[in-house]
């Protein structure tokens, strides 16, 4: 198999894994087998996978409240992710974090974040570290359209550009921040227009076209590695499911028409990419089915791993507070 084909098939597998992971997470939460808040990434898979396909393991990212996709795309272990959702000792954060705080520092995943825009300065710090280390590493921060209303967004765009930090600002514009449409909360709907104001390139891309995202990210990464500074990557996508759920999903007030448009096969990032790979003769429908089956088996194994893992010992409550 050519390297290119290996990479493309892996991109497909990751997107399917992210989707199935979150569909399963919703089932598990509905059945109350996991706890707390859940923000499914279904429909936006191409953004995380396209961007992370342009990154190396030594590059660092920060994520959002909707972070499972970023974890998987950066290479996180779904067993430990699932154990974290189950609140178990073998979870990434030993059960202390849950869905909104999964992190894996070993692979450069510096954390999901329950605070809108909260990860942006932290990614900026990781980019500063990369610049000082001078080994060609970069950082990327994922954030939603809603984050553009926060001061932290504007402050970090300015500083990153001023200091020419090797940083990708990846805006996942899924057109809504919780229940609010972008047009209802922004004075200017086009998010890429912030880029020229801060002296950096702003690139709008079809966020449901994984290869387009990867290509845009590659260019931004290459520029960052050369010392050319940050890029604002504006990825236009759509959230298929509700904004968030606890015991039940929050009501979704978006029109059925709109949902149907975005869920159509010609817009679904996975169906589209499958069609591309089949048309190029790189996979068959049977291959895709085999990938899906394997993903389902892997996820079943992850649930088993999580359920076998013990709950954290209450005696360990104070462990991890302070470093030695």
């Amino acid at each position: 198999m050519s390297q290119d084909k290996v990479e493309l098939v892996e991109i497909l597998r990751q997107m399917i894994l992210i989707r199935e992971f979150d569909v399963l997470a919703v089932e598990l939460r509905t059945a109350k087998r996991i706890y707390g808040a859940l923000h499914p990434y279904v429909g936006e898979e191409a953004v995380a996978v396209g961007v992370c396909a342009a990154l190396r393991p030594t590059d660092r990212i920060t994520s959002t409240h909707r972070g499972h996709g970023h974890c998987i795309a950066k290479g996180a272990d779904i067993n430990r992710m699932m154990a974290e959702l189950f609140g178990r000792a073998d979870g990434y954060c030993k059960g202390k974090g849950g869905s909104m705080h999964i992190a894996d520092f070993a692979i450069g995943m510096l954390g999901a974040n329950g605070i809108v825009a909260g990860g942006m300065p932290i990614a900026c710090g990781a980019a500063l570290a990369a610049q000082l280390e001078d080994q060609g590493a970069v950082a990327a921060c994922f954030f939603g359209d809603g984050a553009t209303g926060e001061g932290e967004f504007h402050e970090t765009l300015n500083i990153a550009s001023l200091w020419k930090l090797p940083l990708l600002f990846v805006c996942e514009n899924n057109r809504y921040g919780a229940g609010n449409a972008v047009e209802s909360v922004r004075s200017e709907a086009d998010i890429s227009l912030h880029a020229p104001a801060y002296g950096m390139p702003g690139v709008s891309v079809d966020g449901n076209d994984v290869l387009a995202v990867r290509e845009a990210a590659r260019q931004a990464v290459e520029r960052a590695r050369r010392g050319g500074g940050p890029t604002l990557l504006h990825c236009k996508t759509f959230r298929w499911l509700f904004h968030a759920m606890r015991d039940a999903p929050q009501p979704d007030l978006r029109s059925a028409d709109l949902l149907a448009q975005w869920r159509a096969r010609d817009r679904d990032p996975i169906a589209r990419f499958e069609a591309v790979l089949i048309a190029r003769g790189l996979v068959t429908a049977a291959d895709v089915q085999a990938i899906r089956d394997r993903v389902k088996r892997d996820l079943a194994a992850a649930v088993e791993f999580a359920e076998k893992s013990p709950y954290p010992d209450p005696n360990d409550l104070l462990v991890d507070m302070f470093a030695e």
Partner: protein
Amino acid sequence: MREITVTQALEEAMIEEMERDERVITFATGRAPALENKFGDRRVRFTPISEAAFTGIGLGAAGSGFRPVVNWGMVTFSFVAMDQIVNQASKIRYMFGGQADFPVTFRCTTGGGIQLAAQHSQSPYSMFMHLAGLKIILPSTPADAKGLLKSAIRDNNPVVFFECSRLAGVTGPVPDGDHTVPIGVADVKRAGRDVTVVGLAYYVREALAVADSLAKDGISIEVLDPRTLVPMDAAAIRASVRRTGRLVVVDEAPATCSAASEIIALVTEDPQTFGALKAPVQRVCAAPVPVPYSPTLEQAALPDRGRIEAAIRRVL
């Protein structure tokens, strides 16, 4: 021993730690020419006036292998960075299960008494103490300032380092060489028998002055400086109170939910220390008002020697 000011002591600490470890970097909204000339503008950065961003940048760089010293200027300005302090820095290690260390030091000036009025005269360290996950330092002498800043920079946790404005120009002896002071260890600044006075920052000096004058009346005051507010050296404070049986706590923050309240709780909830108390404990704190500008009002708002002495006489 040579005598230098708190400000000089802090600058020495910065220079020595930056020489010792090239992963120590620093940023502030103002330039630091002495440091910049020595270490260059890669390691000594001045930033836009974007406290939220550069607080988080410090945290992110700390999680990526550096040892940033982030200077907020006044603690006043940290309030626009509260997300990064409260939601991120104080929680990041624990909520991620101890995967990484975050050796970042946040420096800031604090306190009133110099007519800077409400917004620039704040002493909000108890707000930060309340957040589990930050170490909090508040020194009162040049030697402690230097030794504790060096320890803070070497510590692998987020540390908030408060620098009392009224002490900046105060001189005192500072040992030569690599002088460090351990975090979490209180210091008896004056030994005494009759009353324990726990003072914070500027009020350590004021308590010492009161102790001097009361000594003439045969009253023996022990003055104890916690130096670190998190972790608080409860054992040292309790031991002192068990010896004297009396406690007065002096600080320029208002009393409500203050460091003074915390110190008193640590003393009174310990059965042995509680049993040794001979009088109700006393707080000498600021009035519950934003610190006013006019000297007559400001003096009325903040503790002074008269009020410290009156509190001591109440417990005797």
